[in-house]
């Protein structure tokens, strides 16, 4: 090979120009290497923790138990506060529901519970139809479907006539619609239908329509103020029955959520507090209560580690 001087010079010049360019280029790159990977692919960002628990207070929330997790729930209501000092303002009495509730997958949960109020066993399913999200897909609300069946196991009121097992059954169906407005505030409305196979007399309807309204406001990172009201419009129910109204707090500690509240409802299953609430807030006919929820992980999620 043969070079003449100008060619070498020229090559040298180009080489140094390239080198200089490369140095400058490299320096520029170090300022933001990750931008070389391009924009992040947009992902659908699901809203989490609209409520801390699967219940607002008594009412179901849109939340389900996470897939493969089991929620052991103890719901407890004391006696009414206006029962006076002799009953230690209601603390002498206890109404409870024990529940086992399981997350089948990210959308479906199933549960079973037993209440000592009227010795009732309830079973239910709850399915997340729509999940609030932002990012790739903007969905403003979460919508869950809830259906339950309750079996009352106390002896029939009128044992002399022919009684059928179906007369022990009650149903409740709810569409739960909720939106997490911001980090602190979440609200929910729930159009509801309760069906009772057997009612006390012919003046009572079998189908009861109701609307639940509830919400929570976070006070600290680990606690929130909750309120809910389940209204049964018109004169569908006998005047002895009141609308269920509850206020309380959620306190979260590790694997537990404690819900402490005041409510005028003794029953803790849906058809119960919606159609059989007898307490009157104006008379102090309310009770203190709490729900304790302990979550166990049954099926461990698979995380594929990089070898």
């Amino acid at each position, binding site marked *: 090979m043969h070079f003449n001087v100008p060619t070498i010079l020229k090559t040298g010049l180009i080489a140094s120009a390239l080198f200089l360019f490369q140095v400058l280029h*490299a320096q520029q790159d170090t300022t933001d290497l*990750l931008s070389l*990977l391009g924009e992040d692919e947009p992902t659908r960002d699901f809203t989490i*923790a609209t409520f801390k628990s699967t219940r607002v207070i008594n009412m179901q929330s849109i939340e389900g138990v*996470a897939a493969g997790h089991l929620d052991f729930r103890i719901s407890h209501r004391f006696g009414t506060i206006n029962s006076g000092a002799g009953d230690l303002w209601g603390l002498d009495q206890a109404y409870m529901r024990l529940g086992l509730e399981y997350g089948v997958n990210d959308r479906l949960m199933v549960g079973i519970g037993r209440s000592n109020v009227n010795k009732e066993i309830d079973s239910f399913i709850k399915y997340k139809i729509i999940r609030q999200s932002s990012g790739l897909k903007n969905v403003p609300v979460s919508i869950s479907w809830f259906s339950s069946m309750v079996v009352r196991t106390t002896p029939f009121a009128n044992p002399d006539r022919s009684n059928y097992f179906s007369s022990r059954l009650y149903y409740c169906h709810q569409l739960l619609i909720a939106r997490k407005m911001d*980090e602190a505030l979440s609200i929910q409305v729930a159009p509801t239908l309760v069906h009772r196979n057997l009612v006390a007399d012919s003046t009572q309807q079998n189908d009861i329509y109701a609307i639940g309204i509830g919400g929570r406001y976070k006070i600290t990172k*680990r606690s929130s103020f909750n309120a809910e009201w389940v209204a049964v419009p018109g004169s569908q129910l006998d005047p002895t029955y009141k609308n269920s109204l509850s206020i309380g707090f959620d306190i979260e500690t*590790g694997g537990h959520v404690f819900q402490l509240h005041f409510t005028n409802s003794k029953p803790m299953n849906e058809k119960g507090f919606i159609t059989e609430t007898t307490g009157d807030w104006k008379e102090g006919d309310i009770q203190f209560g709490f729900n304790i929820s302990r979550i166990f*992980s049954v099926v461990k999620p698979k995380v594929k580690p*990089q070898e």
Partner: protein
Amino acid sequence: MGALVASTLNIQAQKFFTKDGTIRFFSNAKLEKIEATNNKASIVYDPASGAIEIASVIKGFVFENAFMGEHFNETYMESTKFPKANFKGKLENPSAVNVTKAGTYKAKVVGELTMHGVTKPVSTDATFVVGGGKIDTDAKFNIKASDYGVNIPGDKSENISNVIEISCKSSLTELKK
């Protein structure tokens, strides 16, 4: 000669990357061991300058118990407010790793970690295994949650350690533009 210049340039400008690096953290408290893994970390490494950048989405950490993940995002990391954690740093000695020659290299990486809205310096010894057209990296370091404004309440101190071990493993391949 021109070809030589071009090929040197090519090596020099070469970057390595992954979009599925693994970041794992581990809290070893008295009562409870908590571990979470994120398999979707983005990493870019520029051998010429020794620069390394890592980004991971906080919501991408998977826990054994979904409840822990919810607490992690809601209570501790506030991932809606601070969706990502970033590391921006470089090899203290960029020539400590020769990406053109297969082998195992050790190098000190220094830089800044930003998470939960707080940026702090971190440094660690990392291993780079060059070979087969890729670079496998492995690094481990400890941080204090409290340094990043993540406060573990007193009643949780036996369940969650303030000292969190972070490990980062990845397999980088050449970034083709």
